[in-house]
């Protein structure tokens, strides 16, 4: 269970700007086994950029450097497009935040899921169809046949998100990077989606990087948490020990959330210390 699937050392992502290069990820290091690792932080902390860089999806003109970036023994630095194509989708995949922008609007859901299979492995059309339908069922879509033939605009946001997950999972990847996979969903649907991800980690031994801004959710769902601030990991700890966080930023993030049962007024706010960003 503890074998290392992904190891990242000193990952840096830089974008050139008119004011000189802006480093948005500054020396992030971590390893991932077959577990649920959370990356949390506020907007602009570099958490999504970290996720994208691992999959080689940093948009141009961004530059990614790392001392080590390896997935299951394969060095991802300087991987050729051909190698990426063999890895992405088949062995590592990413679930994006918003299904509205990530599904192809002019292709039916079924065709999109089958396309993922067409690139990875040879199987007959009927087989692919069966697997796609089975996957839709696995992500708790009640009427998989209808959804299979539907276009993205004909399904709800929650369903779209589950379709995305189905599409990413149909090829049974070893590593999944989920970028805020549930923040566009209603809380009751959110629970269902998390359950699917949970199952895949515990039953199929998938490694999951769960990028989120929701500390409360992460503390109950993930095994380990990396807290990012201004492009750096400021703290790494077990999710169950989040309440014992040492770094003032992590503590601030936790305490500024309102709670149903306590009445803290005014809510504590974060006093950002310039030294955190150094």
């Amino acid at each position, binding site marked *: 269970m503890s074998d290392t699937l992904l190891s990242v050392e000193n990952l840096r992502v830089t974008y050139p700007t008119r004011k000189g290069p802006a480093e948005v990820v500054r020396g992030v290091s971590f390893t991932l086994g077959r577990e649920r690792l959370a990356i949390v932080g*506020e*907007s602009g902390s570099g958490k999504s950029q970290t996720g994208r860089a691992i999959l080689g999806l940093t948009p141009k003109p961004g530059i990614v450097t790392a001392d080590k970036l390896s997935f299951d023994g394969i060095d991802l630095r300087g991987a050729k497009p051909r190698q990426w194509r063999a890895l992405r989708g088949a062995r590592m995949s990413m679930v994006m935040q918003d299904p509205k922008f990530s599904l192809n609007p002019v292709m039916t859901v079924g065709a999109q899921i089958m396309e993922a299979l067409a690139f990875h492995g040879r199987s007959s059309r009927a087989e692919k169809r069966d697997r796609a339908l089975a996957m839709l069922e696995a992500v708790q879509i009640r009427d998989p046949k209808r959804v299979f033939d539907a276009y993205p605009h004909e399904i709800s*946001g929650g369903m779209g998100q589950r379709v995305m997950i189905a599409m990413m999972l149909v090829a049974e990847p070893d590593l999944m990077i989920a970028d805020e996979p549930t923040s566009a969903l*209603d*809380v*009751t649907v*959110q*629970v269902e989606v*998390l*359950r699917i991800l*949970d199952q895949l980690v515990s039953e199929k031994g998938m490694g999951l990087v769960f990028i989120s*801004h929701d*500390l*409360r*959710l992460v*503390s*109950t*769902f993930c095994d380990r948490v990396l807290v990012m601030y201004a492009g750096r990991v400021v703290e790494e700890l077990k999710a169950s020990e989040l309440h014992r966080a040492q770094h003032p930023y992590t503590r*601030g*993030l936790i305490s*500024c*959330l*309102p*709670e*149903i*049962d306590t*009445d803290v*007024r*005014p*809510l*504590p*706010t*974060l006093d950002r210390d310039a030294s955190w960003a150094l």
Partner: protein
Amino acid sequence: MGLLDVINLDVIFGEAPQQVHAVKGVSFSVREGESYGIVGESGSGKSTVLRAICGLAPVSGGAIELGGREVVSPRGRDFYKTVQMVFQDPYASLHPRHTIDRVLAEPLAIQGFDNREERIERALSDVGLGPGFRFRFPHQLSGGQRQRVAVARALILEPKVLLLDEPTSALDASIQAEVLNLLDRLRAERGLTYVMVSHDLAVVAHMCDRLLVMQHGRAVEELTRDALRARTATTDYTRQLLAASEGYKPAEPK
């Protein structure tokens, strides 16, 4: 009878074949000085109720009463002097090519207020923004600062009732705390009445004395903050929301 009464409200969009019945017979009453919450998931009609109150959605059935008098459509100028709204997305609700000064001056001009200079400066300082922000454009502000401007824009007319549509859902947690504190302080200082819509039970429990749970356009349950804390919700749906707001729990034994 409260300051704001919503009586058996129906909101219907569109014509017969594609009609959407967004709000179905919702009633509630908000007392003066109270903070009232509406929670529900997307599509529950919670925002539509707010929009119907301020005239942005049609009142297809039932009535809305302000201070015991039924409001007319279109709403008059005096209605907006009493009731103002803060919208969900501070990135979309401020005109991108108007300076903050212009955003704040417009309602004053419409309502014929005097001392506009002074009022704009005070409105900005009330929400914790200095005079330095006055001539900036929205793109020069952060999300939290924009939402402060939206609150300032609503409060500059000195309304009694503030309708808040998910005022913090587009903001980071630490900024959310700042905006909630600001709203809390302003209510205490000015005796404002709030109607606040949110999908986040914790935010509503923090801000509101009473709340209404909505699902599929209907009011499911009305409960007080104390009842929410005591977990004495009577409907399954409210209990489900409460459970979900506590984070993820591994599959429960069936």
